């Protein structure tokens, strides 16, 4: 199978730089699958699962929003955070999600910026939990 070059990068580190046959990502408009030599494409990534396939193996990751660009057979994914499913700490994510729900309940006390950033963090942790449960059965 033909492959594409994948670069998965967050502000803190370069998470992956490798070849892939197929990448499945969740964009704002829905799920897309990108194969080698896909037409140039730019899209906004939603928090969710990112699946990389190579030689019949699947590598699931969780990403929290970002931009995805396909250009000259190189797929660049700029994510806010990205981690392998094996790296997820379920207990921590659940605890944090519970705390965030509590904080968000006191809506009237929060200004709009804090509110959006908290709900963004909550969405991120919920995605982590969801993807973790899907792959760790």
């Amino acid at each position, binding site marked *: 199978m033909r492959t594409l070059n994948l670069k998965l990068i967050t*502000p803190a580190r370069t998470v992956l730089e490798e070849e892939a046959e197929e990448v499945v990502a969740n964009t704002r408009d829905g799920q897309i699958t990108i194969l080698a030599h896909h037409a140039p*494409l*730019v899209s*906004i990534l939603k928090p969710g699962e990112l699946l990389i396939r190579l030689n019949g193996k699947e590598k699931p990751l969780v990403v929290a929003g*970002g931009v995805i660009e396909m*250009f000259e057979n190189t797929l660049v994914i*700029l994510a806010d955070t990205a981690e392998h499913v094996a790296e997820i700490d379920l207990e921590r994510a659940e605890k944090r999600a519970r705390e965030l729900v509590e904080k968000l309940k006191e809506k009237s006390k929060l200004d709009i*910026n804090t509110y959006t950033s908290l709900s963004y963090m909550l969405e991120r942790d919920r995605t982590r939990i969801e993807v973790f449960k899907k792959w760790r059965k």
Partner: protein
Amino acid sequence: MGANTKEVKQRLVSVKNTRKITKAMELVAASKMRKAVENTLRTRNYHNLAWGIMDRILSSQLWFNTNSPVKRFFEEPKEVQHTTVIVFTSNRGLAGAFNSNIVKQVIPHIKEHGKEAVEIITIGAKGASMLSSFGATIALAYQKNDTAADDSSIRQAAEHVYHAFRNKKTDRVMVAYTDYKNAMTQNAVIKQLYPFTRETQVGIDTNGKKHEQEKNIEAPKNLEYLYEPSKYDLLDYLALRIAQAEVYQALLESNASEHASRMIAMKNASDSARDMADALQLEYNKARQAAITQEIAEISAGATAVS
């Protein structure tokens, strides 16, 4: 032994203790600096790629025949009424001229436009106190995360300027930070963030020497991207992301510079303490010897008087 020896001894001990503290602070600053420099290098990749994508979108098509609010991010304003400056300083002192150098960059800017027209966002406690005593308008004040390993501590500030700029509350956004060249040299600089300019890219200085940039692939003129959802949404999204990346980069550069200048300041303090301790040791020895000589003189004088 006279009172003089005792006094000198006390001072000697206290100078030596001070030197232990400054030496420890020097070592701590050195290790923090190394980490900050590492982080700066790791972020550069994200930063370059984000710019690359935006460049390619912008060059692939003419698109400015629109009233989209996103347009604002890419055009020089006709009239500048309000400016926002994000100022990076340290939380604590004992870092040499680190903070005053940054403030020196910001103050002419405030004077030029007037105190009311310039809104300041400080990251780091020192900047807030120094600039408010000057009389500047401080809109937001954050503590600086000295050992930042991700961008969570500056995300709010970046979002704030993005919304303010998009909603036309400010016409220009600048970032004042300290550019890290090496352990000996750091430069306080002030750079424009919004609207985007060619020189915006934080971390690349004017002679372009320091950070060799990976050359981004130029887009062919007829390149047609598939945009999802639309290119305005994408540019809008990137405008925020790039601001976050820039501000984060500025934070890391400032951290590296802060620790470097604290390291140098503490090294100088340790060296001075050593010189002072040497001088005091000499003085102590002299005083001790003088006391002994005097005692012998007294004893022998007494002996002569008896015989």
